Protein backbone atom coordinates (compact mmCIF):
# COMPACT_ATOMS: atom_id res chain seq x y z
CA UNK A 1 0.00 0.00 0.00
CA UNK A 2 1.24 3.48 -0.85
CA UNK A 3 0.36 4.70 2.67
CA UNK A 4 2.92 2.33 4.13
CA UNK A 5 5.56 3.39 1.62
CA UNK A 6 5.00 7.09 2.38
CA UNK A 7 5.17 6.50 6.13
CA UNK A 8 8.27 4.37 5.70
CA UNK A 9 9.97 7.01 3.57
CA UNK A 10 9.14 9.78 6.04
CA UNK A 11 10.42 7.77 9.00
CA UNK A 12 13.61 6.95 7.10
CA UNK A 13 14.35 10.58 6.25
CA UNK A 14 13.59 11.83 9.78
CA UNK A 15 15.83 9.16 11.28
CA UNK A 16 18.57 9.96 8.79
CA UNK A 17 18.51 13.70 9.54
CA UNK A 18 18.44 13.15 13.31
CA UNK A 19 21.24 10.58 13.17
CA UNK A 20 23.51 12.74 11.07
CA UNK A 21 22.83 16.33 12.17
CA UNK A 22 21.87 15.84 15.84
CA UNK A 23 23.44 12.57 16.99
CA UNK A 24 26.32 12.92 14.52
CA UNK A 25 26.62 9.14 14.39
CA UNK A 26 28.37 8.70 11.05
CA UNK A 27 28.44 4.92 11.21
CA UNK A 28 24.67 4.68 11.78
CA UNK A 29 24.08 7.37 9.14
CA UNK A 30 25.73 5.14 6.53
CA UNK A 31 22.72 2.86 6.85
CA UNK A 32 20.47 5.70 5.66
CA UNK A 33 22.53 7.67 3.16
CA UNK A 34 23.25 5.90 -0.10
CA UNK A 35 26.89 5.34 -1.05
CA UNK A 36 25.82 6.72 -4.45
CA UNK A 37 24.19 9.83 -2.91
CA UNK A 38 23.67 12.62 -5.47
CA UNK A 39 23.94 16.12 -4.05
CA UNK A 40 22.28 19.20 -5.56
CA UNK A 41 22.64 21.56 -2.58
CA UNK A 42 24.93 24.24 -4.00
CA UNK A 43 27.20 24.56 -0.93
CA UNK A 44 27.84 20.87 -0.21
CA UNK A 45 30.63 18.80 -1.78
CA UNK A 46 29.55 15.76 -3.78
CA UNK A 47 28.37 12.43 -2.41
CA UNK A 48 27.74 11.08 1.04
CA UNK A 49 31.33 11.90 2.06
CA UNK A 50 30.88 15.56 1.14
CA UNK A 51 27.84 15.81 3.39
CA UNK A 52 29.41 13.91 6.30
CA UNK A 53 32.57 16.07 6.14
CA UNK A 54 30.41 19.20 6.29
CA UNK A 55 28.72 17.96 9.46
CA UNK A 56 32.05 16.90 11.00
CA UNK A 57 33.32 20.46 10.49
CA UNK A 58 30.16 22.12 11.92
CA UNK A 59 30.07 23.70 15.42
CA UNK A 60 29.25 21.37 18.34
CA UNK A 61 25.87 23.02 18.96
CA UNK A 62 24.56 22.25 15.46
CA UNK A 63 20.89 21.31 15.70
CA UNK A 64 18.25 20.26 13.17
CA UNK A 65 14.53 20.58 13.94
CA UNK A 66 11.97 19.18 11.55
CA UNK A 67 8.49 20.55 10.97
CA UNK A 68 6.16 19.57 8.16
CA UNK A 69 7.17 16.39 6.34
CA UNK A 70 5.27 15.31 3.21
CA UNK A 71 5.83 12.18 1.16
CA UNK A 72 4.54 11.39 -2.31
CA UNK A 73 5.86 8.66 -4.60
CA UNK A 74 9.63 8.38 -4.15
CA UNK A 75 9.98 11.92 -2.79
CA UNK A 76 9.95 13.40 0.69
CA UNK A 77 10.00 17.16 1.34
CA UNK A 78 10.91 18.43 4.81
CA UNK A 79 10.51 21.91 6.22
CA UNK A 80 13.11 22.41 8.93
CA UNK A 81 15.46 24.66 10.85
CA UNK A 82 19.24 24.42 11.26
CA UNK A 83 20.65 26.33 14.23
CA UNK A 84 24.15 26.44 15.69
CA UNK A 85 25.65 26.67 12.22
CA UNK A 86 28.38 29.14 13.19
CA UNK A 87 26.44 32.16 11.90
CA UNK A 88 24.45 34.77 13.84
CA UNK A 89 21.26 33.49 12.18
CA UNK A 90 19.37 30.22 11.79
CA UNK A 91 18.74 28.63 8.45
CA UNK A 92 15.28 27.60 7.38
CA UNK A 93 15.53 24.78 4.87
CA UNK A 94 13.23 22.94 2.54
CA UNK A 95 14.94 19.64 1.79
CA UNK A 96 13.80 17.54 -1.14
CA UNK A 97 14.90 13.91 -0.90
CA UNK A 98 14.49 11.08 -3.38
CA UNK A 99 14.36 7.62 -1.86
CA UNK A 100 15.69 4.59 -3.69
CA UNK A 101 16.00 1.04 -2.31
CA UNK A 102 15.55 2.25 1.27
CA UNK A 103 18.31 4.87 1.04
CA UNK A 104 18.39 8.65 0.74
CA UNK A 105 19.62 8.65 -2.85
CA UNK A 106 19.38 12.24 -4.09
CA UNK A 107 18.95 15.62 -2.44
CA UNK A 108 18.00 19.17 -3.37
CA UNK A 109 17.46 22.04 -0.96
CA UNK A 110 16.53 25.66 -0.58
CA UNK A 111 18.03 27.61 2.32
CA UNK A 112 17.04 31.01 3.68
CA UNK A 113 18.00 32.99 6.81
CA UNK A 114 15.22 32.83 9.40
CA UNK A 115 13.59 36.25 9.72
CA UNK A 116 13.03 37.89 13.11
CA UNK A 117 9.85 39.77 14.07
CA UNK A 118 11.46 43.05 13.00
CA UNK A 119 12.34 41.58 9.61
CA UNK A 120 8.98 39.98 8.91
CA UNK A 121 6.33 41.93 7.02
CA UNK A 122 3.75 39.19 7.45
CA UNK A 123 4.48 38.93 11.17
CA UNK A 124 4.16 35.15 10.92
CA UNK A 125 7.07 32.80 11.56
CA UNK A 126 8.82 31.22 8.57
CA UNK A 127 8.96 28.00 10.59
CA UNK A 128 7.24 26.71 13.73
CA UNK A 129 5.04 28.80 16.02
CA UNK A 130 7.26 31.71 16.95
CA UNK A 131 9.72 34.14 15.45
CA UNK A 132 13.33 33.76 16.59
CA UNK A 133 15.25 36.14 18.83
CA UNK A 134 18.93 35.81 18.03
CA UNK A 135 21.35 35.73 20.96
CA UNK A 136 23.61 38.39 19.52
CA UNK A 137 22.57 41.88 18.43
CA UNK A 138 23.31 40.94 14.85
CA UNK A 139 20.25 41.05 12.67
CA UNK A 140 21.43 38.61 10.09
CA UNK A 141 21.75 39.15 6.42
CA UNK A 142 18.19 38.29 5.39
Amino acid sequence: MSQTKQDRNKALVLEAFDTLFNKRDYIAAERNWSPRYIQHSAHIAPGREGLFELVKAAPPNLKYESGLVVADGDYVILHGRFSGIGLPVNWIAADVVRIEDGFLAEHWDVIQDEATREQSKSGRPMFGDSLPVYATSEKGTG
Partner: protein
Amino acid sequence: MPEQPHPYDPLTSDNTALVLVDHQVGLMTGVRDYSTGELKHNVVALAKAAKALKLPIVATTTARDSLWGPTFPELVEALPGVEIIDRSSVNAFDDERKAADSKKALAVAGIKGVFIDRDPTVFDRLFSADYRQHNPQIPNGTAAIKALLGKLPADFKYEPGLVVAEGDYVTIHGRYFGWGPKPMIAVDIFRVANGKIAEHWDVMQEEVPAAQSANGNSMLTSTQGSV
Protein backbone atom coordinates in the same frame (compact mmCIF):
# COMPACT_ATOMS: atom_id res chain seq x y z
CA MET B 1 -26.18 16.83 6.96
CA PRO B 2 -23.25 18.99 7.96
CA GLU B 3 -23.49 22.70 7.34
CA GLN B 4 -22.35 23.71 3.86
CA PRO B 5 -18.71 24.71 4.38
CA HIS B 6 -18.70 27.48 1.79
CA PRO B 7 -21.26 29.07 -0.51
CA TYR B 8 -21.91 27.87 -4.05
CA ASP B 9 -19.10 28.60 -6.52
CA PRO B 10 -19.66 28.36 -10.28
CA LEU B 11 -17.88 25.34 -11.76
CA THR B 12 -14.62 26.15 -13.54
CA SER B 13 -11.59 24.10 -14.53
CA ASP B 14 -9.90 25.30 -11.34
CA ASN B 15 -12.44 23.89 -8.88
CA THR B 16 -13.63 20.82 -10.80
CA ALA B 17 -12.21 17.39 -11.47
CA LEU B 18 -13.53 14.44 -13.44
CA VAL B 19 -13.56 11.18 -11.48
CA LEU B 20 -13.99 8.04 -13.59
CA VAL B 21 -14.79 5.14 -11.29
CA ASP B 22 -14.12 1.55 -12.35
CA HIS B 23 -14.73 1.47 -16.10
CA GLN B 24 -13.40 -2.08 -16.22
CA VAL B 25 -14.00 -4.76 -18.80
CA GLY B 26 -15.29 -7.23 -16.20
CA LEU B 27 -17.91 -4.77 -14.96
CA MET B 28 -19.33 -3.92 -18.39
CA THR B 29 -21.59 -7.00 -18.40
CA GLY B 30 -23.45 -5.67 -15.39
CA VAL B 31 -24.73 -2.70 -17.40
CA ARG B 32 -28.28 -3.51 -18.61
CA ASP B 33 -30.00 -0.16 -19.10
CA TYR B 34 -28.19 0.62 -22.34
CA SER B 35 -25.68 -1.00 -24.66
CA THR B 36 -22.02 -1.43 -23.80
CA GLY B 37 -21.13 0.33 -27.06
CA GLU B 38 -23.14 3.38 -26.10
CA LEU B 39 -21.67 3.39 -22.59
CA LYS B 40 -18.10 3.29 -23.93
CA HIS B 41 -18.88 6.00 -26.45
CA ASN B 42 -20.31 8.33 -23.79
CA VAL B 43 -17.53 7.79 -21.25
CA VAL B 44 -14.81 8.30 -23.86
CA ALA B 45 -16.53 11.49 -25.02
CA LEU B 46 -16.71 12.75 -21.43
CA ALA B 47 -13.02 11.95 -20.86
CA LYS B 48 -12.01 13.71 -24.09
CA ALA B 49 -14.06 16.77 -23.17
CA ALA B 50 -12.39 16.90 -19.75
CA LYS B 51 -8.96 16.58 -21.42
CA ALA B 52 -9.79 19.42 -23.81
CA LEU B 53 -10.88 21.60 -20.87
CA LYS B 54 -7.70 20.64 -18.98
CA LEU B 55 -9.67 19.34 -16.00
CA PRO B 56 -7.80 17.20 -13.50
CA ILE B 57 -8.87 13.60 -14.19
CA VAL B 58 -8.83 10.82 -11.63
CA ALA B 59 -9.54 7.31 -12.91
CA THR B 60 -9.85 4.21 -10.78
CA THR B 61 -10.22 0.47 -10.98
CA THR B 62 -11.06 -2.04 -8.26
CA ALA B 63 -9.15 -5.29 -7.98
CA ARG B 64 -8.07 -5.12 -11.61
CA ASP B 65 -5.45 -7.86 -11.37
CA SER B 66 -7.61 -10.36 -9.54
CA LEU B 67 -11.27 -9.76 -10.27
CA TRP B 68 -12.63 -7.16 -12.68
CA GLY B 69 -9.86 -6.76 -15.22
CA PRO B 70 -8.38 -3.62 -16.77
CA THR B 71 -10.03 -0.37 -17.78
CA PHE B 72 -11.60 -0.77 -21.24
CA PRO B 73 -8.92 0.07 -23.81
CA GLU B 74 -10.83 2.86 -25.61
CA LEU B 75 -10.89 4.83 -22.34
CA VAL B 76 -7.21 4.14 -21.58
CA GLU B 77 -6.42 5.51 -25.03
CA ALA B 78 -8.42 8.66 -24.28
CA LEU B 79 -6.47 9.24 -21.05
CA PRO B 80 -2.79 9.54 -22.00
CA GLY B 81 -0.66 10.41 -18.99
CA VAL B 82 -3.40 9.63 -16.44
CA GLU B 83 -2.38 7.07 -13.85
CA ILE B 84 -5.31 4.75 -13.19
CA ILE B 85 -5.49 4.13 -9.47
CA ASP B 86 -6.29 0.58 -8.44
CA ARG B 87 -8.05 0.58 -5.09
CA SER B 88 -8.99 -2.03 -2.56
CA SER B 89 -11.85 -0.28 -0.76
CA VAL B 90 -15.36 -0.15 -2.25
CA ASN B 91 -16.00 3.57 -1.68
CA ALA B 92 -13.77 5.39 -4.18
CA PHE B 93 -13.78 8.54 -2.03
CA ASP B 94 -12.25 6.63 0.87
CA ASP B 95 -9.00 6.60 -1.04
CA GLU B 96 -6.98 9.51 0.21
CA ARG B 97 -4.99 9.71 -3.00
CA LYS B 98 -7.96 11.24 -4.78
CA ALA B 99 -8.33 13.88 -2.10
CA ALA B 100 -4.59 14.58 -2.33
CA ASP B 101 -4.80 14.86 -6.12
CA SER B 102 -7.53 17.49 -5.99
CA LYS B 103 -5.56 19.52 -3.42
CA LYS B 104 -2.47 19.26 -5.59
CA ALA B 105 -4.45 20.54 -8.58
CA LEU B 106 -5.82 23.43 -6.51
CA ALA B 107 -2.40 24.57 -5.24
CA VAL B 108 -0.84 24.28 -8.70
CA ALA B 109 -3.75 26.24 -10.23
CA GLY B 110 -3.25 28.86 -7.51
CA ILE B 111 0.49 29.39 -7.99
CA LYS B 112 0.17 29.30 -11.79
CA GLY B 113 -2.78 31.68 -11.68
CA VAL B 114 -0.78 34.18 -9.66
CA PHE B 115 2.70 33.95 -11.13
CA ILE B 116 2.22 32.64 -14.67
CA ASP B 117 -1.21 33.92 -15.73
CA ARG B 118 -1.05 36.90 -13.31
CA ASP B 119 -4.80 36.60 -13.07
CA PRO B 120 -6.19 38.89 -10.34
CA THR B 121 -9.43 36.85 -10.13
CA VAL B 122 -7.48 33.85 -8.85
CA PHE B 123 -7.47 35.19 -5.29
CA ASP B 124 -11.23 35.26 -4.86
CA ARG B 125 -11.66 31.93 -6.64
CA LEU B 126 -8.91 29.81 -5.12
CA PHE B 127 -7.61 31.52 -1.99
CA SER B 128 -9.24 31.66 1.43
CA ALA B 129 -10.47 35.06 2.63
CA ASP B 130 -8.22 34.80 5.68
CA TYR B 131 -5.13 33.58 3.78
CA ARG B 132 -2.21 33.31 6.19
CA GLN B 133 1.15 34.39 4.85
CA HIS B 134 4.44 33.22 6.38
CA ASN B 135 6.79 34.64 3.74
CA PRO B 136 8.59 37.38 5.70
CA GLN B 137 8.72 39.74 2.71
CA ILE B 138 4.97 39.79 1.98
CA PRO B 139 2.32 41.17 4.34
CA ASN B 140 -0.54 38.91 5.45
CA GLY B 141 -3.63 38.19 3.36
CA THR B 142 -4.25 38.09 -0.38
CA ALA B 143 -4.48 41.88 -0.93
CA ALA B 144 -0.71 42.15 -0.58
CA ILE B 145 -0.02 39.56 -3.32
CA LYS B 146 -2.68 41.10 -5.52
CA ALA B 147 -0.89 44.47 -5.20
CA LEU B 148 2.44 42.75 -5.84
CA LEU B 149 1.09 41.28 -9.06
CA GLY B 150 0.84 44.73 -10.67
CA LYS B 151 4.43 45.55 -9.72
CA LEU B 152 6.13 42.45 -11.13
CA PRO B 153 8.72 43.28 -13.78
CA ALA B 154 7.89 42.44 -17.40
CA ASP B 155 10.46 39.63 -17.49
CA PHE B 156 9.10 38.02 -14.30
CA LYS B 157 8.66 34.30 -14.78
CA TYR B 158 7.81 31.24 -12.69
CA GLU B 159 8.68 27.63 -13.54
CA PRO B 160 7.09 24.96 -11.33
CA GLY B 161 8.94 21.67 -10.86
CA LEU B 162 8.33 18.73 -8.55
CA VAL B 163 5.05 18.74 -6.60
CA VAL B 164 4.89 16.65 -3.43
CA ALA B 165 1.53 16.52 -1.67
CA GLU B 166 0.15 14.70 1.32
CA GLY B 167 -2.84 15.32 3.54
CA ASP B 168 -3.73 19.02 3.55
CA TYR B 169 -0.29 20.12 2.38
CA VAL B 170 1.10 20.68 -1.11
CA THR B 171 4.76 21.56 -1.65
CA ILE B 172 6.11 22.85 -4.97
CA HIS B 173 9.79 23.08 -5.93
CA GLY B 174 10.29 25.77 -8.54
CA ARG B 175 12.24 28.68 -9.97
CA TYR B 176 11.35 32.39 -10.01
CA PHE B 177 12.90 34.91 -12.38
CA GLY B 178 12.59 38.62 -11.59
CA TRP B 179 12.30 38.68 -7.78
CA GLY B 180 15.85 39.97 -7.74
CA PRO B 181 18.86 40.20 -10.02
CA LYS B 182 19.36 36.41 -9.99
CA PRO B 183 16.86 33.59 -10.43
CA MET B 184 15.52 32.26 -7.13
CA ILE B 185 14.91 28.59 -6.32
CA ALA B 186 11.95 28.07 -4.01
CA VAL B 187 9.93 25.51 -2.20
CA ASP B 188 6.41 26.85 -1.69
CA ILE B 189 4.28 25.11 0.91
CA PHE B 190 0.50 25.48 0.83
CA ARG B 191 -2.11 24.30 3.30
CA VAL B 192 -5.51 23.62 1.78
CA ALA B 193 -8.70 23.97 3.87
CA ASN B 194 -12.36 23.87 2.78
CA GLY B 195 -11.37 23.68 -0.89
CA LYS B 196 -9.28 26.87 -0.78
CA ILE B 197 -5.61 27.71 -0.39
CA ALA B 198 -5.52 28.80 3.24
CA GLU B 199 -1.89 29.23 4.28
CA HIS B 200 1.55 29.62 2.72
CA TRP B 201 5.16 29.20 3.74
CA ASP B 202 8.18 29.30 1.49
CA VAL B 203 11.93 29.01 1.45
CA MET B 204 13.79 30.93 -1.26
CA GLN B 205 17.44 31.04 -2.26
CA GLU B 206 19.34 32.68 -5.09
CA GLU B 207 20.12 30.03 -7.67
CA VAL B 208 23.75 28.94 -7.82
CA PRO B 209 24.43 27.80 -11.38
CA ALA B 210 25.66 24.20 -11.65
CA ALA B 211 29.10 25.35 -12.82
CA GLN B 212 29.57 27.30 -9.56
CA SER B 213 28.06 24.69 -7.26
CA ALA B 214 30.23 22.68 -4.83
CA ASN B 215 29.06 19.52 -6.58
CA GLY B 216 28.48 20.60 -10.17
CA ASN B 217 24.76 19.78 -10.06
CA SER B 218 21.81 22.03 -10.71
CA MET B 219 19.68 23.16 -7.74
CA LEU B 220 16.53 22.31 -9.72
CA THR B 221 16.49 19.42 -12.15
CA SER B 222 14.10 18.22 -14.76
CA THR B 223 14.58 14.57 -13.77
CA GLN B 224 12.27 15.24 -10.82
CA GLY B 225 9.40 15.69 -13.25
CA SER B 226 7.26 18.79 -13.43
CA VAL B 227 3.66 19.87 -13.62
